């Protein structure tokens, strides 16, 4: 296979890779299909078409994989669309490793198209757009080269550069056309088979129903932004040291936390407790990276409502449902959500009413709690009777005596005992659990709360990252209600990812925010707004509609136009200038070398005449120059053009001559003379 064909195949395979990547970003494809395709892509790029001679056998293998995917769908492990997308990837991988021919090329491109469409259905990620463009570029180039390659006679080189240039321009126009179509085509929606797009790779799994101790805590290093909140009144600080509660837990069985209480009926607005005059209002947007349905609000939330779910097919209002532990969830599934919440400042939760069962649960201990826990708490508290003081005393002691770590491996039988007496290191859930249970062993009511800690200023809003996920303790103080006490060392409460990574992620999140608002959430209403803006441009109330821009704007515009025109003329002249004949370039080089050698042609003396003269004069340069001259004449006038690299070969003897001339004469050969005249 010739080199250009290999290039075309590489482009084809990269196109298929980009198409598969557009599906992978959804994070929904089974790992084994991703691994199988990645392996196929690597093999294909290396030119190892391992299925070329085993078409039937490998087709059976493909059927087996299809069966596996089908079974996964049947048992409910896999969504049908995801399975179809995965199978398209496997087919593409199989075809990439088969004998390259027109049919397999077409099949790979077709599978690529289907995969891109699948990617659009699975994910709303910004990376999808990147993969889409990459697929367009690679696939178009590959198809364009294939069309030309089919028409180029065998043995002739493929004009890759000439093909790429017009194709690139065409692609630019295609992308512009796609944008125009996207904006102008009426956003119709039959809404028959809409499916929820996934939040994509790197999204958190959200807040689970339980808090289970013992697992590795990798969430802390995840810099993805999961929440954006606008707080009124504005706290006016860059770093917000606030607790954002999602839910609380009152029951611990030795391994994990749960809550008593069942779900209540769904409503548009949920009131958790009476509000107050000093309430903080929050307009919160849960980004797709959040990946869960639980509402989050500043401590202590009083009311939540006006919730809107953002789905792939548009935005719609959604109801809320209250569950046990103060958790409030969205009823409808969505890629992201926005809602409003009001919260009381911390330590103003005295009015929350609790049932006897709920109160009793705040003192519940697991059946097989290690007796050393109570003993340790008693020792540390040393007779302290006041709940808040006891909690703070224990919290200080834990922060002082125990280390923070995310390096925890696997589950242990008694994670609390393991934390307190063996490892003496853990993450926020260990600290919060230890504090809560130690308080309970001494008769103080307490519960565990989970959510986020912190808040980073971004314009007028605050953002929270996945790494800000946190757990802490609520201590029930008579006449004051639940008071937050955090046993986790302060430096380890918020996100712990690298600053550079956070910066990059922030940049990405900003871009994705624009992507979501301008593309993913683009609706019929937006289209109407655009149309209205075209028909009736918005008027600036401060200015008259007939007022023209100031003179300096016209000046700058004129200057910019002149510069652009000048650049264009310069480039056009450069690009359209006739290129010198290859043989002429050879003569230029020869003349330069002759000048360097001190040989000057007479007036009107051609290279041929000069060579003849040098031969007559027995000049040492005549020998290397004669063949060059002869070949030049053939190339320029004899219709025998120079071959690739031939000019360099012809010039080599001349170069050697010049190098020998430049080199200092050896002392022993001082008497030797050059034959040059």
């Amino acid at each position: 296979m010739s080199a250009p064909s290999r290039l075309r195949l590489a482009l084809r395979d990269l196109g298929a890779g980009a198409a598969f990547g557009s599906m992978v970003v959804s994070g929904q494809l089974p790992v084994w299909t991703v691994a199988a395709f990645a392996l196929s892509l690597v093999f294909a790029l290396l030119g190892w078409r391992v299925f070329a001679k085993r078409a039937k056998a490998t087709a059976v293998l493909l059927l087996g994989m299809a069966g596996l995917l089908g079974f996964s769908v049947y048992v409910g492990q896999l969504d049908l669309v995801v399975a179809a997308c995965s199978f398209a990837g496997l087919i593409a991988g199989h075809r990439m490793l088969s004998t390259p021919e027109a049919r397999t090329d077409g099949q790979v491109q077709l599978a690529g198209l289907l995969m891109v469409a699948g990617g659009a259905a699975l994910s709303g990620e910004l990376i999808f757009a990147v993969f889409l463009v990459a697929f367009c570029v690679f696939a178009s180039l590959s198809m364009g080269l294939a069309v030309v390659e089919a028409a180029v006679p065998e043995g002739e080189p493929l004009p890759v550069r000439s093909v790429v240039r017009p194709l690139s321009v065409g692609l630019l126009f295609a992308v512009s056309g796609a944008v125009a179509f996207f904006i102008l085509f009426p956003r119709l929606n039959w809404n028959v088979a809409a499916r929820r797009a996934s939040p994509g790779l790197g999204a958190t799994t959200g807040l689970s129903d339980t808090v289970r101790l013992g697992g590795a805590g990798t969430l802390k290093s995840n810099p993805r932004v999961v929440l954006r909140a606008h707080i009124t009144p504005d706290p006016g600080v860059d770093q917000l040291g606030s607790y954002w509660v999602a839910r609380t837990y009152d029951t611990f069985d030795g391994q994990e936390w749960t809550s008593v209480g069942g779900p209540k009926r769904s409503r548009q607005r949920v009131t958790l407790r009476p509000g107050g005059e000093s309430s903080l209002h929050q307009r919160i947007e849960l980004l797709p990276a959040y990946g869960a349905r639980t509402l989050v609000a500043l401590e202590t939330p009083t009311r939540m409502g006006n919730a809107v779910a953002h789905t792939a097919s548009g935005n719609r209002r959604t109801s809320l449902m209250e569950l046990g532990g103060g958790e409030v969830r969205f009823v409808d599934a969505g890629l992201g959500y926005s809602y409003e919440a009001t919260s009381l400042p911390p330590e103003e939760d005295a009015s929350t009413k609790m049932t006897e069962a709920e109160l009793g649960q705040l003192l519940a201990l697991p059946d097989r709690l290690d007796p050393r826990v109570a003993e340790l708490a008693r020792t540390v508290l040393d007779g302290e009777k006041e709940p808040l003081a006891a909690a703070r005393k224990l919290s200080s002691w834990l922060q002082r005596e125990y280390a923070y770590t995310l390096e925890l491996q696997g589950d242990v039988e008694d994670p609390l005992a393991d934390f307190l007496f063996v490892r003496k290191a853990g993450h926020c859930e260990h600290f919060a659990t230890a504090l809560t249970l130690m308080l309970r062993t001494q008769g103080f009511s307490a519960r565990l709360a989970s959510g986020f800690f912190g808040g980073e200023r971004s314009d007028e809003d605050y953002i929270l990252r996945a790494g800000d996920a946190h757990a802490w303790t609520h201590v029930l103080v008579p006449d004051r209600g639940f008071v937050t006490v955090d046993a986790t060392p302060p430096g380890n409460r918020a996100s712990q990812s690298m600053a550079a990574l956070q910066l990059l992620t922030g940049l990405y999140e900003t871009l994705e925010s624009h992507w979501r608002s301008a593309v993913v959430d683009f609706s019929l209403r937006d289209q109407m707004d655009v149309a209205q803006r075209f028909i009736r441009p918005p008027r600036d109330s401060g200015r008259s509609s007939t007022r023209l821009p100031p003179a300096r704007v016209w000046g700058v515009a004129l200057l910019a136009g002149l510069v652009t025109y000048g650049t264009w003329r310069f480039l056009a002249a450069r690009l359209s200038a006739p290129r010198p004949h290859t043989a002429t370039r050879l003569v230029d080089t020869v003349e330069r070398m002759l000048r360097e050698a001190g040989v000057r042609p007479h007036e009107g003396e051609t290279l041929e005449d000069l060579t003849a003269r040098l031969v007559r004069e027995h000049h040492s340069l005549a020998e290397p120059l004669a063949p060059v001259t002869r070949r030049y004449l053939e190339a320029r006038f004899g219709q025998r053009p120079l071959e690739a690299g031939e000019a360099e070969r012809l010039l080599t003897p001349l170069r050697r001559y010049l190098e020998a001339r430049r080199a200092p004469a050896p002392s022993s050969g001082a008497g030797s003379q050059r034959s040059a005249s």
Partner: protein
Amino acid sequence: MKAKASSSWARLRVLLRPPRTLKVTRTGRTYLVVTFGVGLGALNTGNNLLYLVLGLLLSMVVVSGVLSERCLRHLSVRRLGTESAFAGEPFAYRWAITRKQGHAFALTLAEVDTPLTGEGRVGYLRSGVEHVVRADLTTPQRGPLRLSGVRVTTTWPLGLFAKTRVFELEGILLVYPRRGYACHVPTEALQGAFGDSSTPRRNDGTGDVAGLRELGPTEDARRVHWRKSAAMGKLIKVEREREERRTYQLSVDAGLEDAALERRCEEVAALSHQLLEAGHEVGLETPTERLRPASGHVQERNILRALAWVGFEELREERQKEEAA
């Protein structure tokens, strides 16, 4: 009459032909089906990304049309033709194509509205350079083939659509009869029996000994008489009289039609080839033409040309009038 009708029909077709024609390729059909599917999916789900993909797919169709149109502009085509075209076997055919400005890609050239099969291809056509395109064409029929134009097709840029432009270019391709085998050589010759006659004027044959002379510097050494040469001490050549070849007059009888006429033409073509190859002189008599016996490749070409016109005399007259006018 038949020829006139077909010629009128060909002219009508030329008049009614659109300036560009578009045909969807196999890949293009699949592409359109997928585009339709994506469109349905977008409408069905309201998924904006599917709308984006749909927009891109449709834009690529438009861009494909524009780029292929650009490819077919500023072209000029010249027909170079062929040396000889025999019915039923591929023959080399050439066109010269030039582009005044810009480049063109993946062009396919073919004769339009003819039974000629086969096409020539150009992968890349630079501006201002005349490119000679060669094709192996085949036609099943003998006779003059009226050529009305050259079809230039491109599938550039993505191979989804084949856009065609026809260059109106009148011409005639004379197709010689199918080459076959002659079953037997005719026994009746116009002049002499094989090997019976000879002429003393030409001494380069294989007949009787005409004399001996010294071998020239560039002469064939196989004619050296070795015994005489040994006796005389120099190379002596034997000169023999040349045997004259026979002369045949082949004919295509009047009244033959269709398959019988074709068979006879093919038979005469094969016979004349065989006899001329053997060095004989061959003449031909057709209902409207008579060729005097002669030998050599030029005579074979004349015979083939005459055979190609047999049955198409009206067209020949028409053409002669056109040329005279």
